[in-house]
């Protein structure tokens, strides 16, 4: 920060002296200070400042570029995948172009259908049709088998009758209907049209349980497919509860640490830092071991007589709360502790001497002063818990998985990158909103560690 003032100071001095220098050059000469090589000191100083600034920026550039290439670019490339739609265009390029030109009314014209037949036959021949079939299946279950079946039948027919004969019929749509009655439904054709452009809002709409209908209106998806809003709601719900629990458990600890003599609080802080430094996976494993049916907690409870048969404590919501609160508690306590440490204990005594009872003194004098720490802790814990993946995946049941789990699921298991990217974007937006609040409250450079 010390370097920030000289350039400003230099500019001010410059602004003040310029007029007098213009009117009375002799005075300027008298005041002017020159360096050994005859350059006015002012210019030389400004040059040096500029040079120093460039050098400072030069120090930042390597890391900035490194992060841009190894971190920011990958994430943006992946997020961009949520609007990319290359599959149909790659496998069935002419079909894609024709379908985009079709107005979506009735059935596609015969020339378009002829192109569809040709490309289905070709794609079935070189076995690329599966890729397009998989893409179409995202819209409606069963479209994959429909596409595969149609392509196979058309290929066989083309071999037996020849392509010319296959395309010769006056009404190709009847041939499609003959292969499968579903081709008689307009929506299967409009879906093919919607899946054709190189970019699509389909995945983004899906991530909030919306879809295009046959007339390109945005509508809610059917009951059985509407899962994403639920998942987002569950993610926020779990995060809010974890944050509240952390606040309730963290406030007394932070208060105790802040009011104890330094020597005692230093020892207790170690007890807080040990879990903080211990690997997340280790802590999750520990809870898995402790809470399982044959685990220590059940064992102890049965011995003491709390309950008679093992109680399910893990692979359910309870396990998720216990493990997540355990992992995130230090993140709540540390910011609150550093704020509480700075509160003058005499404030409470002053309140008491002015007649406030302890509760009132706490609520009116102490609590308001801790709000910045509480805010920082709450936002930090909430932001971190929104993205939780490992812990719910290990100690939660199928109904306790959060958004991150489904992002990983789409990237890993179904390999539906569009959906994985769209859900990532949703998660990123949530985090960004709360991080913006955090930044306003705490400031990005003032994130406290340990």
């Amino acid at each position, binding site marked *: 920060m*010390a370097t920030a003032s000289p350039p400003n100071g230099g500019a001010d001095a410059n602004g003040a002296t310029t007029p007098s220098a213009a009117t009375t050059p002799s005075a300027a000469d008298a005041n002017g200070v020159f360096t050994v090589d005859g350059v006015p000191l002012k210019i030389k100083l400004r040059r040096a400042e500029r040079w120093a*600034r460039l050098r*400072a*920026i*030069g*120090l*930042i550039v*390597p*890391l900035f570029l490194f992060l841009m290439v*190894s*971190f*920011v670019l*990958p*994430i943006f*490339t*992946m*997020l961009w995948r949520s609007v990319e739609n290359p599959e149909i265009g790659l496998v069935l390029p002419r079909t894609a172009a024709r379908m985009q030109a079709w107005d979506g009314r009735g059935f596609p014209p015969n020339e378009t259908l002829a192109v569809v037949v040709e490309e289905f036959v070709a794609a079935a021949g070189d076995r690329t049709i599966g890729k397009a079939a998989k893409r179409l299946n995202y819209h409606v279950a069963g479209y994959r088998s429909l596409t595969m079946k149609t392509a196979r039948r058309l290929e066989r027919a083309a071999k037996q009758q020849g392509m010319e004969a296959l395309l010769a019929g006056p009404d190709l749509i009847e041939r499609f209907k003959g292969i499968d009655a579903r081709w008689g439904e307009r929506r299967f054709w409009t879906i093919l049209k919607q899946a054709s452009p190189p970019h699509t809002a389909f995945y983004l709409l899906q991530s909030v349980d919306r879809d295009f209908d046959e007339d390109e209106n945005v509508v809610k998806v059917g009951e059985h497919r509407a899962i994403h809003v639920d998942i987002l709601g569950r993610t926020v719900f779990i995060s809010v509860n974890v944050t509240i629990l952390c606040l309730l458990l963290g406030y*007394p*600890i932070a208060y*105790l640490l802040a009011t104890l003599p330094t020597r*005692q609080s230093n020892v207790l802080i170690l*007890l*807080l*830092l*040990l*879990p*903080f*430094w*211990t*690997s*997340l*996976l*280790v*802590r999750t*494993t*520990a809870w898995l*071991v*402790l809470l*399982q049916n*044959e*685990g220590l907690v059940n*064992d102890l409870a049965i011995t003491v007589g709390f309950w008679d048969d093992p109680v399910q404590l893990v692979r359910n919501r309870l396990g998720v709360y216990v493990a997540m609160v*355990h992992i995130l508690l230090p993140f709540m306590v540390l910011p609150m502790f550093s704020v509480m440490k700075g509160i003058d204990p005499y404030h409470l005594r002053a309140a008491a001497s002015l007649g406030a009872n*302890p509760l009132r003194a706490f609520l009116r004098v102490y609590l308001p002063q801790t709000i910045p720490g509480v805010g920082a802790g709450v936002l930090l814990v909430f*932001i971190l818990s*929104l*993205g939780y*993946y*490992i812990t719910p995946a290990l100690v939660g049941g199928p109904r306790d998985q959060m958004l*991150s789990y489904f992002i*990983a699921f789409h*990237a890993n298991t179904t390999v539906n990158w569009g959906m994985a990217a769209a859900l*990532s974007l949703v*998660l*990123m937006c949530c*985090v960004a909103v709360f991080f913006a609040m955090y930044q306003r409250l705490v400031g*990005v*450079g003032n994130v406290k*560690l*340990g």
Partner: protein
Amino acid sequence: MAAPPYATPLQKSWYYALRVICGLIFFFLIAPIVVIIPLSFNSVPFFTYPMEGFSMRWYEEIFGDSPQSLLWQRSIVNSVVIAICSTALATVLGTMAALGLTRAEFPGKSLVMAVLISPIIVPIVVIAIGVFYFYAKIGLASTLTGIILAHTALGVPFVVITVAATLQGFDHNLVRAGAILGAGPLRVFRKVTLPIITPGVVSGALFAFAASWDEIVVVLFLASTEQHTVPRRMWSGIRELLSPTIIAAATLLVIVSIALMFTMEALRRRGERLRGISPG
């Protein structure tokens, strides 16, 4: 450790209640970690007390010479190599950037800062699949290099934050004094700046090391069996069958964590002591 003599009975009971509550919360924080460690020495594969007997067999499964053990040892080597390389990279890049950030004001500085901090804010799954998606295209998936690059990005914010915090109290006149006395920029850095900011650099490096050492999600996506780290092997173990070998590996990780934590605390207290001696 007693309530002040002038406290009313209500205050006294509150005073002790607070300590009991906090005691329970601390128990909740510490007990799970402490309790599982002895279980890694259990002679039978159960997770209950009292233990049947003492045995090192689970550690032998890690350090022995069966094929499984070799996989564990390989994962330890991978973990160490990845953590050290990414820590070194993150420390050098992060320290340079922190030096630059505290020296210059320029438009868009807060945006640059946001980019440098973003790896600890972006949800780890998003980072993992983004990195996987992109690195697979450029042939860095399933390579140690890819994992090291990703872990470097994850560790960088810690270094930037801690070094920048140390530099807040740094007197830039010392640098000018060094320059006036004829030292070049590099020499000033080596002889003046570095010794002063070393505690910040070291704690940043420790954080970066821990971030890489404990990291699982990026490895989950980016590593094939060849590059498995200790947490990644633990992950497969937990998903298949929770055996005491996992607890033994967990114990090893805890020991490293404790070592990191005490180094960190020692540094912090040294810093406080030094500040206490020299006012200002």
